[in-house]
C-alpha cells in the first residue's frame, strides 16, 4: 500500500511542545536552586541544552518515520524512530472517530484523527499531524461504507 507523510506543519507544533516541555523543568529547577542559595547555571544549562537538542532533532526524525496510507480495506499507520510499529485497521472495525485540534495545532492548521475500535488493548488509534482538512476528508473516506457491524 502506498503511504505518505503527514503535514510538515506538525513539526512546528511538536517543536513548540518540546520547548514548553523543556522550559517547565528548567524554570522550576532554576527557582529551586536560587531559593536554596546556589548558582543555578550548570543544572539549568544542562536541561536547556538537552531540551534544545531534542527539540531540534526529534520532531523531524519522528516526522520522517510517521507515515499513513488508506485503501479500500482500511488504514495503515507506521510510526516510531527506534521502536517501529505499524498498525493496520480495517475500516469495518471503526466504531466512531474524533478529529481534534489543540491550540497549537489550530495555529498551524493541523489536527489529530482518532479512530475508536471495539478492541480491548487498542481501543483508540491516533494519527496526529494531519492537515485539518485532510483529517476530515480521511475520516469521511474511512467511514464511507463501514456501516457493517463492528464486533
Amino acid at each position: 500500500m502506498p503511504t505518505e507523510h503527514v503535514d510538515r506543519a506538525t513539526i512546528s507544533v511538536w517543536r513548540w511542545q518540546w520547548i514548553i516541555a523543556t522550559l517547565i523543568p528548567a524554570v522550576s529547577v532554576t527557582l529551586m536552586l536560587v531559593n536554596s542559595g546556589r548558582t543555578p547555571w550548570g543544572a539549568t544549562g544542562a536541561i536547556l541544552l538537552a531540551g534544545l537538542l531534542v527539540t531540534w532533532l526529534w520532531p523531524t526524525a519522528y516526522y520522517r518515520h510517521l507515515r499513513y496510507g488508506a485503501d479500500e480495506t482500511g488504514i495503515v499507520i507506521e510510526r516510531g524512530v527506534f521502536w517501529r510499529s505499524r498498525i493496520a485497521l480495517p475500516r469495518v472495525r471503526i466504531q466512531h472517530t474524533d478529529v481534534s485540534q489543540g491550540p497549537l495545532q489550530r495555529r498551524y492548521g493541523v489536527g489529530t484523527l482518532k479512530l475508536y475500535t471495539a478492541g480491548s488493548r487498542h481501543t483508540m488509534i491516533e494519527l496526529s499531524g494531519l492537515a485539518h482538512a485532510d483529517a476530515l476528508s480521511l475520516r469521511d473516506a474511512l467511514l464511507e461504507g463501514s456501516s457493517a457491524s463492528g464486533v
Partner: protein
Amino acid sequence: MASESLTFEPQHRLHPLSWLFSLTNYIKNFIVPLAFLVFLGARDDEMWGLVAVVPLLIGALWKQWIYRYGFGPRGLVIRDGLFFRNVRQIDYARIENIDIERGLLHRLLGVAQASIATSTGGKAEASIRVLSLDAVQELREQVFSHRAEKAATGQPAPQAVAPTADEVLLRLPPIELVRFGLIDNRGMLVVAALVGFLAQGGAFELVMRNAASWLDAPLHDFAALGFAMQAAIGVFGLISALIAMRILSVAIAFVTLFDFTLSRHSDDFRVHHGLLTRLALTLRVRRIQSIHQTQTLLHRFFGRVSVRVDLAGDSGVSEEGKQQSQTRTRWLAPICTPDMAQTLIATALPDVDFTASPNWQPLAPRARGRIFRKSVYFGVFFAALTALTLHLVPEAPFRPGMGWIPAVLAVLLPIAWWRAHVFVTNTRWALTDDAVMFRYGWLTRRLIVAPRNRLQSVHFAESPFDRRHRMASVSIDTAGGGAMRDNIHIPFLPEQIARALMVRLYHSEIDRGRVPQALPPA
C-alpha cells in the same frame, strides 16, 4: 412506537423479600470488617454497627417500594432510584445475556438474582435483585421471544424460543474438581487476601503485642535444636503449608464449580455450576472472540487442559470510561482432556474449519539464541544488583565475593538454555483461511485460537534488537479479553514473514460469506 415507549409504565415489582437481599448487599462490605474488628477487640464500639443498619434497612425497603420493571414495546424498562428517579430502557435486540445467580439464601427462599448484560462491556446493565423463579422464567421468555421477533422482523417468533432440549457437552464429576483444585492454586490467593484483610483490620498489631510472650518459649526450644532438626522442621512446615493450601484450593473448587455442566441450547452454550451459589450463565457463540487453552505442568501430569473463552464486551472500558476488571473467568471447561478440548473449541467456533490440520510455523531460527541471551543478561543484572545491595547493607547476613556472579552463571546458563530451547520448540503459529492460532510457553503451555473475522486491528512492531536480527513481532487485537489479558502476540518472527502475515491478516475478509452479523438490525 416512540409515543408507546414514552407512555409505557413498568408494572412488575420485585419479590416481596427483596429488601432482605438489598440489605445484605449493602452491609456485606460493612459488617464483615466490623465483625472482625469486634472479634479481635481492636475497637469496643460494638453498638455502632447496629445503629448503622437502620438507615440501610429503610433504604432497602424504599428501593423495593420504588423499583419496577416491565416489558415495553422496544425493550426492557426498569424504573429505579431513591431520590433521583431513573428509567432505563434496554433494547431487547441488544440484550446478550441474562445471568442467574442464586446464593444459599436465595435457594432457601426460592428466589434468584438476574443480571442483564448487553455488549457494551463493563458490568451488567441491570441487576434485578431479587425475583421469584417464575418471574425469572417469565423475564427470560419475554426477552428472548421479543428478541427473536425483532430478528425475524415481524415474522412470528421462530423456533428459537421453543424450548429445545439442551445437549450436555461436558459435566465435571467430583474427581475432576479435585484435579482442578490441585492444579488451580486458588487457595494461595485466598490466603493472601485474608492476610491483607487481617493486616488492615489491625489483627497484626494484636499479634505483635503478644508475640513476644507467646513465642518466647517455643523460640528458645527451637534455638536449642541442632541445625539438621531446624532445617527438617522448616521443610516440614513449608510442605504442610503447601498441602494445606492445595486442600483449601480443592475445597474452593468444590464449592464454586460443583456440578459444572456445559450444555448447548440452540446456538448458545449454557453453563451451570456452584454448590452453595448456583450460577446459570449463557455464552452466546457469536460473542466469542477467542479461545484460550492452558496447560500447566500439573495439567500435563493429570493429562488435562483448561479452556476459556473471551466474550465481546466482557471487560475493557465501561460506560464511565473506567477500566473494569473482568468479573469472572468464562470457562468452557475448567478442566477436560485435550481431545474434549478440541471438540469444544470446534463447537464454540463454528466459523472456523478445523478439519484440516493447521500448517504450524516456527519462530525465526535465531530466536532461541535471543531468548537465551535475554535471560542471561537479566540474570547477571539481578545477580550484580543483589551483590551490590548486600554490600551496601551493613547488617547483611553474608557478603557475596567476586565468585558470586560466576556461581550464579553456572546455575543460570543451563536453565536459561533449556528454557529457550523448550520455548522455541513449543512455540508455533498458524494462519488458516479463517483463523489465527498461536501456541507458546515453556512450563505452562498455551494455545490461543482467534477467528479471523473477529480481528479488530493488526499490529506489527520492530524493536532496535529486532531490527538487528531482522525480526519483528505481530499481534492482534480482538473485542474480547481486557488490556491485561494476553491476546495473540507472536514475537521473534523473521521480518519478511511478519510483514506478509500482517498483510494477510489485514486483508482477512471480515464481511464475507459465513461471517454472522454481530448485531441484528435494530
